[in-house]
Structures are given as structure tokens and as C-alpha cells.
């Protein structure tokens, strides 16, 4: 956070108030979470609206919770034009997972801009690891 030498508590002791860096990162996180939450809630509501048996049947839950049922992301996203609830849920999940990734990228960029290159390099390395997790997950599948 920004150090404030004129702080009434004494020089050199920064009050834990957010600086510009913290404010930008907080905005990124809030925006990502809000968008993801809206999509997840929308997807859930659409699913229940399109499937009346979700409200009455005790058998359908078994298939929804079957760990052996493949839930391929690309196949689910392809149903988005048909206004499928699971597609909106998947989109929300992608937004949610992307939020900390965007936050890490912004942290690295902002620290580099402030001349804090060592920590900026750490941030870039983290970003590469995160992106690799998606690629490796696809390869393994």
C-alpha cells in the first residue's frame, strides 16, 4: 500500500488504507465475481425452468451427480445458442476461474510499471503456470 509520511500516527507508519494498486485489483476481483455469479445464478434458474422434473423427481439427481458422466466443456458451451442452463453455468465457471488469472496478470503489469521488476517476474511465472494448467488438463483428457 502507499506510504504516507504525513500520517498523523507518525512518520513512516502507513495507515492500512488502499492505494491505487489495491483499488485496481479489488475492482478486477469484484467485477469478475459479480459477472460469474450472475451467470451461475441465471444458468441454474434456466435449468430449473426447462426441466420441471428437477422440482419433483428424486431419480434425476442420480444422473446429475454421476461422476462417470462426461461433462466436456466444449460440448456444453456449444449449447449456449439453445439457451441451455448448463451452458450458462459453464460460462460462469469460466469467468470465475479467469478472475484470479486476470488479477495476477494485472498485478504483474502494475508492479512492473512501478519498477518492482523482481515481483513482476514472479507474477508472470504464476500466470504461465495457470495457463499451463488449462493446456495440461486438455492434454490429459
Amino acid at each position, binding site marked *: 500500500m502507499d506510504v504516507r509520511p504525513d500520517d498523523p500516527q507518525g512518520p513512516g*507508519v502507513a495507515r492500512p488504507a488502499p492505494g491505487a494498486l489495491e483499488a485496481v485489483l479489488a475492482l478486477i*476481483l469484484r467485477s469478475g465475481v459479480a459477472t460469474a455469479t450472475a451467470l451461475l445464478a441465471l444458468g*441454474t434458474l434456466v435449468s430449473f425452468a426447462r426441466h420441471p422434473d428437477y422440482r419433483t423427481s428424486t431419480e434425476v439427481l442420480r444422473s446429475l451427480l*454421476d461422476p462417470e458422466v462426461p461433462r466436456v466443456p466444449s460440448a456444453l458451451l456449444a449449447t449456449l445458442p439453445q439457451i441451455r442452463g448448463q451452458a450458462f453455468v459453464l460460462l460462469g465457471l469460466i469467468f470465475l476461474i479467469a478472475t484470479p488469472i486476470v488479477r495476477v496478470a494485472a498485478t504483474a503489469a502494475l508492479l512492473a510499471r512501478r519498477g*518492482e521488476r523482481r515481483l513482476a517476474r514472479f507474477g508472470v511465472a504464476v500466470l504461465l503456470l495457470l495457463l499451463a494448467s488449462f493446456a495440461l488438463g486438455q492434454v490429459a483428457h
Partner: protein
Amino acid sequence: MTIGRPSMTPLLFTAIVFGSSLGAGALGSLLGLGGGVVVIPVLTLLLGVDIRLAIAASAIAVVATSSAGASAHLRSGLANIRLAAYLELGAAAGALTGAFLSGMVASRWLFVLFGVVLAASGATLLRKDRDADRPEGGDAELSGVSLDDEGRSFRYPVLRPRLGLALIYLAGVFGGLLGVGAGVLKVPALDVAMKVPWRASTATSTLMIGVTAAASAGVFLARGAVAPIVAAPVAVGIVLGAQVGTRLARALPSWATRTLFLGVVAWMSVQMIRKGLA
């Protein structure tokens, strides 16, 4: 394992998962945990969800807890961005390691492992409050500012950063194995090993656990291991619950949240070990 025990409709299941996730989110953001320590036992022990789906949903939930809670901690100034940037490298690498190892370990041993590590983590906190100790030295670049129980700010150094990085890597492996943010291990690593004050430890842990979980969640999602019926109510519930937790974190004294943390850890540890050995 019986799926959806007892027999219930998807509507009832969603409502129960959402409700319990509200509490998990509040507790998680209050204590610097990802909510996974609550979500996984609820899904598996109470609702009979397969642990593979529970772990994947938990990873999603931890991302939600972290992003929602950390936003507030950043605005309050307690989350140490620079320390998090340093430690996240270990956390992300560990999480990737753990995610790929998870398919090689039998489910029951994941329960036992989880329980044992929880107990060990709690044991490290059974000591007097050391926030009164103000160590000197340490890495100046990573230092931050925290609040004491009287609301006064003070600057703290960060000691033994490399040891902290190694511990955070191990915490990340554990998080990747079980789809939790491993805040239950990261908070003690920050507090005990690196001498970061309790409030800053929980706030910084909340920020970091999202990175760990995103690495794991990315793998689970790409593999098709995330069930929307589970992940959606968990994530939404935790996001809403986290709003309450972050406000409580600033209002409650350190000893109260530390005691609550120990209670949660102890109960969860016992339940998970019992489940694995049953």
C-alpha cells in the same frame, strides 16, 4: 456410495448446498480459508456426493471465496499484495502437482490425509498470541502493514521468505490433491514461519488461495469433472456468504478468530479421519 443420500429432488439438493455454502463462505473469508474445508464434508458426508465431484466443486468454491473476500481485504489494506505475489509461485506450482497426483490416490486415503494435515496445522497454532511480538529485520520489499486489536496500524517485516515459499508449495500440493485452497495450511505458514500478524495472514491467505484453486479448477473443468448441479449453488452461496465474513474479520479480535479457526480445524480433522478409516 449412495448418490444424493437421502433421496431428494435436485431442487432440494440445490437449496441445501446453497444454504450450507452461505455459512462456508462467511466462515472461510473470516478465517482466510477457502470454504472447501466445510464444503467437502457437507457434500460427501451429508449429501453422499462422490468425492471426485466434491473436490472439483470445492476448487471452484475456493476461487469464489478468494475473489469475493480478497476484494474487501484489498480495500481495507490488510492483504499484502507483494507477499502474495512472491508466494503464489509456490502455491500455483504445488497446486498443479497436487491436481495431477489426485487421480493416483484412493479416495479413502484422501480423507485420512486431509484429516491428518488439518490436525497438524491446528497444532502449530496452539501457542500464545504472538502479535505482541514485533520482530525486526526480514525482507523489506515484502513487508506490510496490519492492525492491532485497538485498531492501530503497525508495519511488520516478513521473516524467512524462502522457508515460507517452500511451505506454501507443500500447501499447494495438498490443495491440488483435494481441491481446497489450503488456507488452513497457508495461514499458519504465514503466521508461524514468516511472523506475519494474524489479521494480515488471513487477509493475504484469502488473496492467495484463489490462485491455487484456479490452477486446480482449470484442470478439473477441462477434464469435465465439474458437475454444474453442485458447482453453481456452491459458488453462488460462498460468494454471498463471503461478504459477511470479511466484515466480521475486521470487527472481531484476533484471539476470537484464532479460536474459531482452531475449533473448525479440530472438528473437520476428526470427521475426515473417521470417514477415511470407516
